[in-house]
């Protein structure tokens, strides 16, 4: 039996005391435990940023790569070893800024991975510049007169692409978040969970600001209705719905054809291509071929 402590990492945590990232970390550990995953069956993939440090704080396989490039790395890992549960943990700067193109094309590909976006609406590790989700008008340590660009709309974009699973969570609601993670990881295809994770140092709004506004989606919400989901995701109001916003219709998974052909095995375990196959292609041009 897997227990919470199996995921306990010995590594000193470098987040600020009280950072909502701790909530995400705990929720993720709980989700993995409740899914019965063993640490060696899980691979966490990240870029650079505060969010991207998460894999170090959880005992499992990890690939902590370049800023913005977690998704492509995860896609490569997922193809090379389809037996792994591959989860990306990324900041919104990492995922929507530097890595925006990969995010977009991951939506087109539908790999069977989970992407958790820690959305603190700021570049935290670099000390407080505006990120793609910083609300327009907010002043930051680089945008002294306020952010001018419009906020990124990535949940809506994901819905447009009929992303398999699109959810919004709140780091301050750990139980709910943990449930979202369980569903996201279990779901076939690309699962996106954007988590509201206010930065208590550089964030432009307090945790309480969000706590007052988040609310669970109504029980009768139809997560398969794209139009409604879009409306919900795009709504600009005083309420921030959390929960599963959308589930896309089933569609082929990324690399599914190849994976089936290779028997869903880790590629490292496949035998070498036969020398005969190679030699035949290199043989002399023969009149009678």
């Amino acid at each position, binding site marked *: 039996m897997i227990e919470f402590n199996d995921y306990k990492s010995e590594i000193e945590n470098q987040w600020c005391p009280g950072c909502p990232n701790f909530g995400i970390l705990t929720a993720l550990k709980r989700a993995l435990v409740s899914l019965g995953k063993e640490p060696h069956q899980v691979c966490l993939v990240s870029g650079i940023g505060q969010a991207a440090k998460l894999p170090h704080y959880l005992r499992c396989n990890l690939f*902590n790569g370049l800023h913005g490039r977690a998704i*492509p790395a995860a896609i490569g890992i997922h193809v*090379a*070893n389809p037996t792994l549960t591959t989860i990306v943990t990324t900041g919104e700067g990492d995922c929507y800024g530097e890595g925006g193109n990969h995010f977009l094309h991951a939506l087109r590909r539908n790999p069977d991975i989970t992407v958790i976006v820690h959305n603190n609406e700021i570049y935290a590790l670099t000390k407080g510049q505006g990120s793609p989700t910083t609300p327009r008008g907010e002043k930051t340590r680089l945008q002294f007169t306020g952010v001018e660009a419009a906020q990124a709309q990535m949940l809506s974009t994901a819905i447009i692409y009929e992303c398999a699973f699109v959810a919004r969570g709140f780091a301050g609601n750990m139980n709910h978040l943990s449930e979202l993670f369980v569903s996201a990881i279990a779901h076939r295809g690309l699962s996106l969970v954007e988590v509201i994770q206010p930065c208590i140092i550089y964030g432009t709004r307090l945790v309480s600001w969000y706590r007052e506004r988040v609310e669970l989606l109504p029980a009768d919400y139809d997560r398969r209705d794209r139009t409604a989901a879009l409306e919900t995701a795009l709504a600009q109001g005083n309420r921030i719905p959390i929960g599963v916003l959308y589930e896309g219709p089933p569609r082929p998974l990324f690399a599914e054809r190849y994976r089936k052909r290779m028997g869903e095995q*880790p*590629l*490292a375990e496949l035998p070498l291509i036969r020398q005969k196959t190679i030699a035949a*292609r*290199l043989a002399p041009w023969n009149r009678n071929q």
Partner: protein
Amino acid sequence: MLDLNIVIAGAAGEGIQTIGDVLTRSILELGYSVFTWTEYESRIRGGKSSYRIRVSEKMSNAPRHDADLLLVLNEQAREHYAGLLNKTGVTLAETGEDLQTVAVPFRSIAVEQCKSKLYANLVAAGALCMILQIEFSVLKQVLTRRFAAKGEEVVRLNLVAARAGYAAVQSVPHTQQLALETRDRAYSFLSAHAVIPLAAAYAGCRFITAYPMSPATGIITAFARDEELGVFVEQAEDEIAAINMAIGASYAGARAMIATSGGGFALMVEGVSLAGMTETPLVILIGQRPGPATGLPTRTAQEDLLFAIHAGHGEFPKAVLAPSDPQDAFAKTVRAFQLAAKYQIPVILLTDQYLADSYFSYDKFESENQPLTAHIADPQAISDYKRYRLTADGVSPRLYPGQSKHLVCADSDEHDEGGHITEDLAHMRPAMVQKRLTKRKQLQQAIALPAEIHLLDAETVLIGWGSTRGAIEEAVSQLRAKGTAMGAIHFTEIWPLPDYVFAGDKQYISVEGNATGQLSYLLAAEYGIHFSGTVRRSDGLPITADYIKKEIDDRV
């Protein structure tokens, strides 16, 4: 000894690729060694392009620029390529009056016989075969095979056109010398970019990602076309995705490669550094073309050597190999995967458009190589696994995630042995810097010495690298035949440079497909040698023996 150079010149869309392929195959059927290269503009229709076919009795795998037989499909091509014709050469064209020209109205024959001038290229192919006195049955067999998939009617029309062209050539002056007889030889006929995917698969490659870019697109295309090779192929959204996907796959245990050209590689440089830091094996092919920036997208160059060597921020070991020809490309590709796996580093394969698009003949192509080792450790034999364990040779045992209960942690930050972020500047950082330096030293000792060609008695030595080997060898042997004490040193394993001693009593001349002399700069830094002359070419065309001889004559 027969050594015949045929040039087929025309516009993109006029079918010179078909003429060239069909003719080449026919000549191979006769038992000759054939070497071909092509040059073309960055457009889909129109412009000027050519297909060069060198036919010989012994293997002559090097380009010639001059033409013994020149087919021009249109007037613009005639104007542009006429200068290539040798004194005794023959031109095949739509029109022409002089003694050196065979006139065959391709288009009108095509329209007459096949109701479409689209078949003009087949008429021309037929005419070429006649001039070369290849039996029509040979051509017929080749054509039938080539067009079989397109259906009987297409085969028939192509044969009609070819036969009409064949018949249209009556007796013509000079052409006797061009007659080809049947020989009892058979050659493997291969290009470097056709061979590299095979070599990669042979070496265990299971994963290739690329974003299309000339002249490297053929690599990923070959993998995609040949599903039996069992390699996962993905066209990435951009080059950054390509390299990061491949690094992810390699971390997770799959031998991985990527292929691009200089401009695409420029976008991958951060990823190269990532492979260096995370100690992830990776093979990166750069098909060079002239720069800077978009440059001449369909031409050839050797301009990216220093860039490749120094690509990536920070300091980490990497290898740069530059194969000289398809046979060498096979060996070097396997070697690239082996070095990458053994030292857990990125390895760059430098080819170029000339090498990518040229087909070489081999009477025996060597495809068995050094024994393959996975360089993946046995998890059973390890109790407390640490991905970056400090070892005497700098190389840590490698496991992949999910292979066993051992956890595999890879980190782009400076890390401790366990793969976790460290800020320990007093111990861990210096230890990890030393680890990477040690790997670099180990790697350096594994690097092969350059090839020495007639070096012993040489007074003047050409020094080149990569795809110029054929031209250099040919220049050396031609100059030696004229009595010059010529030799050559040729590098294909360029970084890190091996311990090698240059004799002090020789004159060195560098031969490079660039304008600044990149290899010579490198050799000066590494070995302190001095060059008395340089042969450089940066117009986008390959270096030939004639070019080398002319430059030496002009300058020495």
